[in-house]
Every structure is written in structure tokens, then in C-alpha cells.
């Protein structure tokens, strides 16, 4: 069967790609997508450990599942607010490129 390490490596890869998107992309929505990818990586990790812990205990455990469910809720809320902010910023500044939103730099 599939070893735990495969899931962990996959999740690390997804997390790194998401991190790169957050750090390097200029488009605000692309940054948001990177964050979604990172949250997904975390979820893969959580569910892999949930499965591992359930099989160690011999009965399904609930903590990992609740954590994963909370992350879904969090992701939904975060996306809604972030997209609203992006659209609002686009209305005022006519750009969604984060480098160009530099009003506070003076």
C-alpha cells in the first residue's frame, strides 16, 4: 500500500509551488490561487496523518477530520473576503497588480 511519506512529499511539493506563486506572481488573484494551493497541501497532510493515526489507534479518530473541515470553512471565507478586496481595489485604482498598489510608500 501507499507509504505515508508519499503523501507528505506530495503535500510539500504543493505547498512549495503555492509559496512560489504567493511570493513571485504579480497578479493579486494569482497570489490568492497560490494561497488556495497551500491550504490544499495542508489538507492533504492533515488527512494523511488522520488516516495514519486512525490505523495506529485501530479505530477512526475524529480530530484530523474536524481540522480539515475547519480549513475548508476558512478557505471559503478567506476567498470571499479577498476577492471582494481585490474587486474593490480594482474599482479605485484600476489595477490588480500588487506592485502597483503602492500608495502607502509615498
Amino acid at each position, binding site marked *: 500500500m501507499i507509504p505515508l511519506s508519499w503523501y507528505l512529499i506530495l503535500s510539500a511539493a504543493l505547498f512549495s509551488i503555492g509559496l512560489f506563486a504567493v511570493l513571485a506572481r*504579480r497578479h493579486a488573484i494569482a497570489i490568492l490561487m497560490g494561497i*488556495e494551493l497551500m491550504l490544499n497541501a495542508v489538507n*492533504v497532510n492533515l488527512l494523511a496523518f488522520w488516516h495514519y493515526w486512525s*490505523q495506529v489507534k485501530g479505530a477512526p479518530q475524529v480530530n484530523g477530520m*474536524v481540522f480539515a473541515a475547519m480549513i475548508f470553512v476558512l478557505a471559503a*471565507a478567506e476567498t470571499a473576503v479577498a*476577492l471582494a478586496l481585490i474587486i474593490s481595489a480594482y474599482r479605485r485604482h484600476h489595477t490588480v497588480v500588487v506592485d502597483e498598489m503602492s500608495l502607502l510608500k509615498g
Partner: protein
Amino acid sequence: MSALQWVFIIASLITVGAAVMMVASHRMMHAALWLAVALLGVAVIFVTLEASFFAVVQLLVYIGAILILIVFAIMLTQRSTEAGSRLNSLAWGAAGVAGVIWTALTYVFIRWVVSGTPMQELGASFDDVVLLGKALVDAEGFAVPFEVASVLLLAALIGAVYIAFERKGEGS
């Protein structure tokens, strides 16, 4: 190798490939499509973990809600998306950081004894949905976080509507 392992390998290759294409694609709409592929791949990974509830919720929440919101936002902000480079000046540094993190994590995971444990089948006798549902409304369990999460969603809903609402007479 068993069939399940092949399923995992194919799904994870597709997921990682789609994620890379998402970062690399120039047009935002294509990036959103690649994100959809990556999210579907993650759903398949959840199925191999016997978390079918989360695989379905992944489809429902990420594809059904988040991705469609993102696509709508891309359409609404279309005019400014085509110009300029897609990466900023930090790109090489960011790639370095991400690469180092991945290499280090992978090294740790391969060396770590626990992570070599093969996943056993949990057995079809238990119903994880019932377990999760009971835990979420159990006062001894996770009732408080559950309620807080619902308040968070409501706050996000109202906040998002308030922020994005177009107010008349407040032009740029």
C-alpha cells in the same frame, strides 16, 4: 506495485503538473483552469486516503464555490490582466526559497521512520460522516469551534458584500 499505488502516482503527477502550469501560465483564465485540475487531483488523493467525504466536499467547496468566485473575479478585473510580466523581481529568490523548503522537507520525510508506514485499509465498517457529524455538534467535542466557524462564514459573507458593493457618488 498495486493498482492503488498507480492511482496515487498518476493523480499526484497530474496535481503537481497542474500546479506548476498554474504558476507558469500567463493568462489568468488558464491559471484558474489549471487550478481546477490541481484541485480535482487533490480530490482523488483524498479518495485514496478513504476520506470520500472530504473528496466530495473538495469538489463542492473548491470547484463549486471558490473556483467559480475566482473566475468571476477574473472576468470582472479583465482589463488590467494582460499587460506586463507575470512574475515580479523576487521570482528567483522565491523559487530558491520554495525549492529549499521542498528539498529539506522531502529529506526529512524520507529519513523519518514513521513516514515509511504503509497505509492500511481502515475497513468499510465505520461511517466517518456520522462520526464527524456527531463530533461537530457534541458539546464535549467540537461544538464551539463549529459555531465559531459559522459565525466566521457569516461575517465573511457580510463583509465581502459590504466591501465589494458599488457605492454611488464615491467615484475614484
